[in-house]
């Protein structure tokens, strides 16, 4: 096990347009971590995530990031244009981060196909993205996130609006991935913390880290009081 973190937040204040949403947040993410980030809506989960993804800069405190750190990101189920003329394999290829990105090589395409096969979607490779079910589409976006061979995978509310079957199909892929990369999983639903999470970070204006995946009274207090 490596002992240097991929990302370290130290006493970070973060927010938008001068308004602090999360204050004094400290968090280390190590290569073998699987962290569930939970907290109520508006508590700052997305803000912390944006700091991790380097979309926003901290207003105070420091962020250390491993040199050349590659992050894979699965955004919230959002306003994807389902009628957009793009095939499943092209969506996966869009996650490519290096090499010839204008004309993907045969190896790159094979890697994209291998990811689809891992997600049990290889037979859908040439279908248009809107022809898939919501759960299948979410797994396609997971493949897109993995295309850059990330050291850290960030999943933002990955199972919201999904039925139990789709949730199971997505979650059963994650323990395998956790052997190869760190995973940060954001959820507003404390009942939805998957069993493979190793620790919990409660985000509600501040950040509290717990070395366990069990919901304790302490966690409930942090979230709701």
């Amino acid at each position, binding site marked *: 096990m490596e002992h240097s973190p991929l990302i370290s937040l130290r006493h970070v204040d973060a927010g938008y347009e001068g308004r602090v949403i999360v204050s004094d947040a400290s968090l280390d993410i190590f290569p073998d971590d699987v962290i569930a980030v939970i907290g109520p809506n508006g508590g700052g989960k997305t803000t912390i995530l944006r700091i991790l993804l380097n979309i926003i800069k901290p207003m105070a405190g420091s962020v250390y990031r491993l040199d050349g750190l590659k992050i894979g990101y699965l*955004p919230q189920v959002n306003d994807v244009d389902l009628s957009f003329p*793009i095939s499943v394999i*092209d*969506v996966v290829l869009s*996650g490519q981060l290096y090499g010839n*990105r*204008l004309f993907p090589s045969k190896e790159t395409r094979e890697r994209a196909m291998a990811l689809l096969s891992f997600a049990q979607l290889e037979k859908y490779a040439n279908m248009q993205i809107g022809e898939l079910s919501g759960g299948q589409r979410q797994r396609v976006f997971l493949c*897109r996130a993995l295309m850059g061979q990330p050291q850290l995978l960030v999943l933002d509310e990955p199972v919201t609006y999904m039925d139990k079957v789709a949730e199971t199909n997505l979650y059963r892929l994650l323990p395998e991935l956790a052997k190869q990369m760190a995973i940060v999983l954001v959820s507003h639903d404390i009942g939805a913390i998957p069993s493979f999470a190793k620790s919990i970070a409660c985000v509600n204006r501040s950040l509290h880290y717990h070395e366990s995946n069990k919901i304790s009274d302490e966690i409930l207090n942090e979230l709701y009081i």
Partner: protein
Amino acid sequence: MSSIFEYQFVVDALLSMIFLSVVAGVIGTYIVVRRMVFVAGGITHASFGGIGIAYYLGMSPIGGAMAFAVITALGIDLLGNNGKVREDSAIAMLWSLGMAVGVLFMFLTPGYAPNLMGFMFGDVLAVGLSDVIAVGVVALLAVVVAVVFYRPVMYIAFAPSFARLTQWNVRLISSLMSVFVAVALVLAIKAVGIILVLSLFTIPQSIANVFVKNMGRMMIMSVLIALVGSICGLAASFFFDLPAGAAITALLTVVFLVVKLFVRN
């Protein structure tokens, strides 16, 4: 039939429609898949302001239109990015402001009144060699961009916020494409007119999208449909003395309706 090609204006018109079909097929597909048809409408109409000012100053109307179109396109891009104004309201304002400026300056221009109808509805039989060359160059450029930058353009159009995380320069590529859209639209004004320009940039694409679900194939098929439509329109214009732009628009719309009615998606 061979005799009609003895007229230089017919050859010029035909060449310009061939090149224009390539431009409209490729750029129109981008406009349609990015759902920026209303933006395209705004750019086209705002360009009329440039035409009016150019007339007033005794300069090239298409040059004026180009300047206005590019500024409008970049302006809308900027507004869309910082989100301080509702984008559709901003487009409507620029759309009508451009038209107003055009009319005001034409009104102020002493002497003869320019052919307003020509700009509104176009006159493909009036295009000259320089117009043909201009459209030809842009057609070539459109093909190069569609081949070389196919993937970043598609990725950014599909999921701009995700593309930003994969280190593509989303702002730059989006802006360059907006400029390209503006140039393409203005070049089509002379042939099919401000009011009918959008037909070539949306109807062939909508027909193609019934048959294909891939952006590249949609571009190719749109070019072919635009080509057939515009040659038929041109023929109608030459043989029956009808306005070409209107004939093309009507024909393409009928084809679209027939395809939608009879082809299962």
